[in-house]
């Protein structure tokens, strides 16, 4: 029997996460290459799972589990339930996204199922019974091609590597409800509550022009330089994560995996390396301009225009020219 491909679908407020559509798209391709079936796995509480499952039209079937312990996201409950479900259906390829949930799930599921795990996967190929995955490591700078022995594995896919569109389908899908496993009643990790982001002075996801600053700025005092550039351009200032962690910029200005996704007309990245977690949040900007002194920085792979030079020389010059124009 050809092995199935199983996609772990994430959802919030009844909406499927964009990353999960990317998984369905990759999963479809993989299932077809192996002449196997694609299953969507949806876990939730209070009846939400079956509603979400119905929207997984790219899959051949959806399996859903409903239990109070699966509300929100408590990693242990999800792992225990998914492992119980997948153990009955070997050998399987399981796809998760490299979101916070996926980071908890992928290695744990692999150990529970006794199969290999590949993290940060950006490309997939099938060679006979083998799966060949290409991962992007070292902040996106190095690629590693690895082969999985045997046909079963857990793969954690990088955001943006597979087209979400192909994972969206209005086709009806057969939804099967699976009974929850008994271990759910004694989980050691309990979900308490969700915290939503605090309202901010500006919503960076709604800005047309963004100047974004990264660790290349080196010192908090130097932020004035990019602030002035943003003002001269009529843009809002945002940042990569490390600047937020250092307390130099508010959390509401963070772009990326654990911050906001932005889609401005112009995104001017200053001193940002272009790690996958950052790129995830800004790759869809209409025009991306990057200033970085390292000509090999991965940000130049997503940028439309690149300046491989010292920001401390280019930024003041640019600010001055813009000011002169505005008079």
């Amino acid at each position, binding site marked *: 029997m050809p092995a199935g491909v199983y996609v772990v679908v994430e959802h919030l407020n009844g909406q499927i996460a964009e990353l999960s559509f990317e998984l369905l798209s990759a999963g479809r391709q993989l299932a077809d290459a192996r002449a196997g079936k694609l299953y969507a796995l949806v876990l939730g509480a209070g009846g939400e799972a079956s509603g979400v499952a119905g929207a997984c039209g790219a899959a051949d079937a959806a399996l859903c589990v409903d239990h109070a312990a699966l509300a929100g996201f408590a990693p242990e409950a999800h792992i225990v339930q998914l492992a119980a479900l997948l153990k009955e259906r070997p050998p399987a390829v399981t796809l998760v996204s490299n979101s916070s949930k996926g980071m908890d799930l992928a290695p744990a599921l692999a150990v529970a199922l006794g199969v290999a795990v590949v993290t940060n996967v950006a490309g997939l190929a099938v060679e006979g019974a083998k799966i060949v995955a290409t991962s992007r490591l*070292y902040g996106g700078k190095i690629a590693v091609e690895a082969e999985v022995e045997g046909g079963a594995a857990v793969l954690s896919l990088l955001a943006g590597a597979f087209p979400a569109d192909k994972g969206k389908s209005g086709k009806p899908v057969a939804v099967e409800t699976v009974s929850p496993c008994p271990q759910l009643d004694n989980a050691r*990790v309990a979900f308490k509550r969700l915290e939503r982001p605090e309202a901010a002075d500006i919503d960076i996801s709604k800005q047309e022009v963004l100047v974004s600053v990264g660790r290349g700025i080196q010192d908090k005092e130097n932020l004035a330089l990019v602030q002035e550039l943003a003002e001269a351009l009529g843009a809002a200032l945002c940042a990569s994560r490390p600047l937020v962690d250092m307390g130099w910029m508010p959390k509401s200005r963070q772009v990326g995996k654990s911050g906001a996704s932005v889609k401005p007309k112009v995104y001017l990245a200053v001193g940002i390396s272009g790690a996958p977690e950052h790129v995830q949040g800004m790759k869809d900007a209409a025009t991306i301009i990057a200033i970085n002194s390292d000509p090999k920085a991965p940000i130049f792979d997503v940028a439309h*225009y*690149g300046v491989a030079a010292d920001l401390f020389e280019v930024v003041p010059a640019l600010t001055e020219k813009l000011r002169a124009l505005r008079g």
Partner: protein
Amino acid sequence: MHIVVPLRQSPDLVEELQINAEATDIDRQAAKLGISEWDEQALEEALCLKDGSGAKVTVVTAEGGQAEELLFTALAKGADRALKLAGDFSAPMDNHRLARALADAIGRLGANLVLTGVQSVEDLDGQVAVLLAAMLGWPHVSVVTRVELAGETAQVKQEHSGGVSAELEVRLPAVIGVQAARRTPRYAPVSKVRQAQKSAKLERLAVATDGRSGLRVRRVFKPEAAAQAEMIQGTPEEIAAKLVAILSERGLSR
């Protein structure tokens, strides 16, 4: 309360990475190695817990390279005990092997809580925190930005996308993958590190390293960019003028 913080040596991405002759790994001799940036966050969170409630903090790392420097720096920052782990760490991208080594060490050291970095830049084979927890049979939470201890449990904050976070209660012992500490990691001045080198002792522990990822690395390479940016050259003034032209075309410089 005993907190163990495993530290990883990671290459500094500011330097250009080279690939070894067999194309099976990066060239670690040529790379500039230092503490993985997320481990610095994990250590800080552990030291904050120590400052707050008197926990004991032990740091461990695989022997070789800059191991001693990493450990002395951690001691200078306030860790209580430091150990080098001895074993076969020749397959550095095999996180199963590292996790097995750590599980063995932690089994022998005893711990209520293990704080690791959430990831490193070289995760091909899962994240160590989660593999380690699975091997120990302990619960775990990744991408955590705050750990609060309350008796037999830890309250943690897990970050999700879009600024959403979840509050979770975890029964101890547990492994937590730290994304960011509650404050900027403290700095150990060189003088304090030197002092630690003189006065403190590093222990050495031989550990099992028979974990196996089940993966075969075929090749390590520098990826070709799918679409390269159009590079703008010249003096800063020339570059600025060209950027203004690009911005003007988009109606943005008025």
